[in-house]
């Protein structure tokens, strides 16, 4: 699916042909394999990430369906227990490390960040390319390990099981360790780009909110990823050579593992959803033709979530044997994350107020996103309420909760971004009707998959169960049915987007009439992002006020 020269720029109007002779768009500027594999253009790197991320999403999705089919009946259905344990481990690992974490930052962050900042590229273009290859190297090593021998620890690798299991822990953990470097490198690159490469006129508080979100995400990536890197090395070493970090028989502490693990993996949730929040801020503004209601509140709350997100990890461990007091402390800090998210939700809804809503496909995903974020966030608050977490912990309620907030919100944003920026990236449009149909299918399918899981969790079904007591079956069947609907929605998207990629109508420069900064240049953009002089940025992004009667108050 790597775009080839056949996707010439159809977006260029005849009058602009002259320009394009000298400034071909980035898709056709160099068409050899080598020009793609060795490119330092952030847009091409973003596209290559898109290709791999989608491929891994497919792999993780197929394994998700296998899990759902297995859980159709209380006993064994299509696989044995060991295969099942490896299947959910692979599903979790691939989805989290290979899809969710890089999905928005590495694809759309890479593509849009320099465009939104009026920069010609990211600060370290070669490092950017390197991060792609580091990611691929880690992914291949991890997948090789998972398919040769397999890993049955779950994606959390809890010690002491992971330090004792005879399955192939080392290559998978080392693969994840390598992927971590990609994450760090990308984060550093975005931070430096944001600090140093903003075009004249773009002050911090005139940056698009997507940039704010990516910036906050990058800070988390740079600060938290080293911790899990070290942890993965420790587990590998303990597994291979019998060190005693986590083994109580050797003076170690299995709860220490959990602290180190969640110190990364809890902020990692925000690595996944903060970019999603950023995308949604762009989409809601563009499709309601309104300035963001409470721009600063949304920007600051991204930083707030990034900050508080570091101090909430212990809420994964209320029943792990940590002290009651510590449980309370982490519970209260968790509530703060909820408040920051609530600020965002209210301001998004506020953005629609007195807007001009155009209900296109990306906006349909915004609706789904709003629902998943509110519902997922609220169930998160419920889980942070310490006493309620006691029965819910490690049941399907938690599974449903994190799929809602982490997966639901992120997928909605990923698809919204894909549809919103599709014309920007490829200069072509897709079929709007199919877009809305598949959005409806996906939102419906997602709810049908995970709402039963909330209920089956209430009923007491623990997660990672290969077999389950009979009374859980009805809800499991409902969930599997929902999953097939969801999968069907993705198949439709794949079909009409592929069609659009090859035969779609030319979109023109700015089909949404959006006032996001990234639309100031051509679609698709030329190699160095801008033809002629750099665009100027007199207004804040998403400033839709009629210039004739504009009485622009100073930004709040």
């Amino acid at each position: 699916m790597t775009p080839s020269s056949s996707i010439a720029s159809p977006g260029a109007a005849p009058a602009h042909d002259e320009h394009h002779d000298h400034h071909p768009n980035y898709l056709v500027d160099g068409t050899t394999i080598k020009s793609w594999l060795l490119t330092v253009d952030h847009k091409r790197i973003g596209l290559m990430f898109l290709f791999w991320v989608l491929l891994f999403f497919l792999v993780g999705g197929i394994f998700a369906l296998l899990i759902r089919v297995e859980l159709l009946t209380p006993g064994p259905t299509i696989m044995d227990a060991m295969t099942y344990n490896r299947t959910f481990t692979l599903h979790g690992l691939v989805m989290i490390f290979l899809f969710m974490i890089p999905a928005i930052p590495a694809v759309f962050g890479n593509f849009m960040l320099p465009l939104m900042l009026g920069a010609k590229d990211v600060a370290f273009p070669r490092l950017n390319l390197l991060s792609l290859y580091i990611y691929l190297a880690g992914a291949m090593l991890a997948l090789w390990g998972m398919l040769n021998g397999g890993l049955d620890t779950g994606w959390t690798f809890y010690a002491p099981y992971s330090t004792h299991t005879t399955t192939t822990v080392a290559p998978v953990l080392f693969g994840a360790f390598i992927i971590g470097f990609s994450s760090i490198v990308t984060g550093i690159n975005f931070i430096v780009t944001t600090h140093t490469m903003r075009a004249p006129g773009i002050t911090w508080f005139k940056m698009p909110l997507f940039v704010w979100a990516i910036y906050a995400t990058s800070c988390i990536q740079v600060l938290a990823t080293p911790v899990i890197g070290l942890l993965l090395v420790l587990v590998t070493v303990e597994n291979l050579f019998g060190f005693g970090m986590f083994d109580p028989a050797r003076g170690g502490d299995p709860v220490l593992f959990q602290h180190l693990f969640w110190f990364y993996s809890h902020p990692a949730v925000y690595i996944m959803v903060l970019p999603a929040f950023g995308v949604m801020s762009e989409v809601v503004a563009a499709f309601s033709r309104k300035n963001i209601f409470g721009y600063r509140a949304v920007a600051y709350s991204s930083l707030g979530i990034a900050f508080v997100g570091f101090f909430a990890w212990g809420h994964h461990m209320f029943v792990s044997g940590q002290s009651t007091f510590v449980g309370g402390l982490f519970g209260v800090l968790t509530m703060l994350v909820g408040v920051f998210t609530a600020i965002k939700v209210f301001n998004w809804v506020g953005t629609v107020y007195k807007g001009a809503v155009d209900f296109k496909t990306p906006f349909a995903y915004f609706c789904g996103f709003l629902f998943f974020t509110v519902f997922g966030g609220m169930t998160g608050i419920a889980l942070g309420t310490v006493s309620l977490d006691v029965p819910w912990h490690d049941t399907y309620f938690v599974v449903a909760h994190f799929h809602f907030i982490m997966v639901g919100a992120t997928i909605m944003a990923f698809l919204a971004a894909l549809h919103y920026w599709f014309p920007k990236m490829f200069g072509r449009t897709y079929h709007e009707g199919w877009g809305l149909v598949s959005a409806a299918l996906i939102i419906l399918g997602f709810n049908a998959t995970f709402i039963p899981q909330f209920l089956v969790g209430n009923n007491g079904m623990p997660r990672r169960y290969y077999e389950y007591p009979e009374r859980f079956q009805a809800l499991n069947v409902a969930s599997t049915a929902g999953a097939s609907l969801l999968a069907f929605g993705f198949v439709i998207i794949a079909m009409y987007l592929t069609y659009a990629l090859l035969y779609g109508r030319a979109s023109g420069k700015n089909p949404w009439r959006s006032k996001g900064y990234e639309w100031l240049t051509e679609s698709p953009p030329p190699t160095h992002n801008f033809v002629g002089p750099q665009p100027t940025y007199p207004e804040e992004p998403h400033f839709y006020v009629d210039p004739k009667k504009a009485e622009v108050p100073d930004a709040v």
Partner: protein
Amino acid sequence: MSELLNNILFLPEAASTFAERVDALHYFVVGTTMVMSAGVGLAALFMFFRYRRRLPAQATEYVVPTLKTEFLFVSVPLVFFLAWFGIGFRDFTWVTTPPKDAMDVYVMGKQWMWKFAYPEGPNGVNVLHVPANRPVRLLITSRDVLHSFYVPSFRIKQDALPGRYTQIWFEATKPGTYQVLCTEYCGLSHSKMLAEVVVLPAEEYDVWIKEQRRGRLQDRQDALADTSLVPPVARMVEQGQVLAGTQGCLKCHSVDGSQHIGPTFLGMFDRLERLDDGKDIRVDEAYITQSMMDPGAHLVAGYQNVMPTYQGKLQGPETAAIVEYIKSLRTANIREGASEGPAYDAIQ
């Protein structure tokens, strides 16, 4: 009312005092969040319609929230969240602080079963008998990897950690049989690690435990006048393992053959030890007991005389249990050479 809500929310029967507290807060939280979410959702839907686009390039007003609006956005959720947290934390503290008169039951998770032991009574596997309306404290540990002890009907859950005891308590309110599940992934048969709690009316429980105890004592030909616990050997090993941990033996004595402050327990029994006065001694029950009570009497060569006496600190049966535990570390496959793994059961 709560019966109906229970059915809608698919909650299992509430059969403990903690379950009642959890459910009450659950209804509060779920009810409020549903109303709030519906409010936000309906407001959004209304505005999608009310402010639909009429012209392709329509201009909009520049609207920004007042400080008061933003303050409202922050404070309303915060007040609710903190209220829920306050109630939840109160209940959490309550369930993690067992009342002083609670009866104790030891729970040990092991791949893939639950073992129960009463301080003065029987051992059991996968069936836990408890009296109704009497607080029961569970002291939970694991023998290998992490497990988590979960009784949905009681709404309680606590991880089982190797090398550490954790506790939680409950008071069952209705006689009956309730399912125990393991909720921490523990390997191949994780989902088969099931057990049940049998809640008996208090009087029936007293009869039951008395019978269990009598059965045990009758098995012993030389039942002593002392009817306090005289455990059978198999259980003594477990008890000794616990004691060796709680009494601090394992702080200096390893159980895996590695060098530490004192000689390793691994393979110690029946070993010929060279003493610091040059003589050799065969390690037997007597020598171990003597070393606990008077550590310096026959010091093994190469070790310092730093161990405190346990004279008076250990009851007779406890000393026996520790001896039995040390004897149990004498299996054929770990006796030779250095240990190749942890002292607890290797994971297959």
